[in-house]
């Protein structure tokens, strides 16, 4: 009698409770199949981690260059504040960690052979953030980074372009931006585009205004305005590859939030759950692997 009781209790303890916990954590229904699946996955991921670590140490750059790599990767840097909240730090620490990540990831990107990287550093909508200190803090962070990273950009021959509405940016930052762009304008092959005070709709509006001006002055006819004409007027005209092939938005939000609108007509959108300061080399590789598996048809049959 007692032994039967103890058998039942043991069964509950060893199998049922962990099973319930696992199925709750993974949000899957509780069933034998799902538990076996979880065990297989856990074993497999151990192996995967090892393989990835070996790969990274080895010929990582060559492996990625083989498959179809994107020429232009755009990234929405989301999740700095949530990252700092999770760690009980201040917002500015989150942004500083985000800025460090930007520099590291830029180096990785160019090492993998990607030509153009665009970063959504500051949106036109961000001016309305409730804490004034946060906006000022961000502007000083930009200034600090432009100053400290310029020698690195020059050493690695990375061309820097800043796109966006420049009218609200503080003069000191504007001066640094002009200096950096001037110092790196002749470099080719690696292009880092920073979108500061940028909005996709604003970009199209300024293209429209510029075209209206040209039409008024008789430089072009309104009937001749088509998609390629607008392409040449958008702020991304500074790049050889204005349209991103891959757009990554971290922190799991599935929105473009007014970043590249026109330019992302055929862009593959990737939404990892990781927060930006945690988005490192491994996550980057995952994104590129995911991209390589996409079938891009552009409206036609494969």
């Amino acid at each position, binding site marked *: 009698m007692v032994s039967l009781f103890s058998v039942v209790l043991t069964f509950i303890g060893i199998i049922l409770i962990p099973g319930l916990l696992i199925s709750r954590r993974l949000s899957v229904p509780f069933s034998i199949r799902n538990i076996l699946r979880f065990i297989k996955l856990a074993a497999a991921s151990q192996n995967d981690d090892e393989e990835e670590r070996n790969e990274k140490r080895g010929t990582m750059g060559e492996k990625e260059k083989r498959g179809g790599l994107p020429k232009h990767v755009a990234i929405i840097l989301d999740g700095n504040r949530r990252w700092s909240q999770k760690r009980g730090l201040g917002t500015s620490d989150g942004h500083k960690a985000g800025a460090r990540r930007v520099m590291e990831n830029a180096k990785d990107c160019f090492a993998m052979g990607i030509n153009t990287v665009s970063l959504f550093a500051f949106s036109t*909508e961000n001016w*309305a*953030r*409730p804490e004034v200190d946060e906006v000022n803090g961000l502007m000083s962070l930009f200034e600090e980074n432009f100053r400290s990273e310029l020698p690195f950009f020059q050493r690695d021959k990375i061309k820097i372009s800043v796109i966006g509405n420049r009218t609200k940016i503080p003069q000191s930052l504007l001066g640094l931006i002009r200096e950096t762009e001037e110092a790196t304008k002749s470099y080719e092959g690696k292009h880092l585009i920073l979108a500061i005070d940028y909005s*996709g*709709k*604003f970009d*199209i*509006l300024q*293209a*429209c*205004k510029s*075209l*209206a*001006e040209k*039409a*008024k002055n008789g430089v072009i006819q*309104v*009937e001749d*305005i*088509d*998609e390629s004409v*607008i392409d040449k007027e958008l702020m991304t005209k500074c790049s050889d590859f204005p349209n991103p092939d891959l757009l990554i938005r971290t922190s799991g*939000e*599935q*929105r*473009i*939030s*007014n970043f590249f*609108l*026109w330019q*992302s*007509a*055929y*862009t*593959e*959108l*990737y*939404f990892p759950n990781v927060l930006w300061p945690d988005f490192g080399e491994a996550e980057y590789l995952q994104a590129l692997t995911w991209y390589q598996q*996409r079938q*891009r048809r*552009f*409206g*036609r*049959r494969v």
Partner: protein
Amino acid sequence: MGGGIRQLLEQVHRLSRRCLFRVLSMGPLPTHLAFIMDGNRRYAKKRGLEDGSGHKAGFSALMSMLQYCYELGIKYVTVYAFSIDNFRRKPEEVQSLMDLMLEKIKSLLDKESIVHEYGIRVYFIGNLGLLNDQVRAAAEEVMKATAKNSRVVLLVCVAYNSTDEIVQAVKRSCVEKADRDVERIQLVDIEENMQMSVAPEPDILIRSSGETRLSNFLLWQTGNSQLFSPDALWPEIGLRHLVWAILNFQRSHSYLEKKKKQL
């Protein structure tokens, strides 16, 4: 006997749907849903059917989706029926798609169609000049016939590309402001000239078949839309995907409302 049971089941479904929708309506509901109906051809291949039947199955899925949306009380639904890029497909496929569209557009005028059941106002958005005369005439007839309906709105994007829509809007804005100060062109000027200005911006954009790209659909309007990409192919899309999309929307809604108030 079989028909009676089917009707009974249909009533049971309707009743349980009503209860489910009542629960969903406790939270915020989207005003405008947009669908990219992707995966019809893959569906036909999967089932070993002939090419055209994937699109027919897609049409039935669309009708069910519309029914659920309007039962739930969503006022605007936009669907991406045919892109300007799709004209580059094989001529036979384009022709069969045009024939299917003509048939289905004409069926919207029937008394028993969903249009009359729900009082739908139908718009056809796109470069209609690229369509053949019959399809264009049928589309214009439907738009005229439903112009007085005001309960709910269906926007069908056919021969549409978002970049084309933006180009047309830019051209119109340039012409409008030609004699006046071009510096005073504002966002609203471009927006007013967009064909999609008859509806607010979509709250959720759902693309079936698991692809996560916009494919030149509503680029201007989906800047702040929630994007949702279920793996199901379009003919397999069902109520559960719609419910899941709305639950996700409700989850991030309060955060978005806070942001909007800041602007």
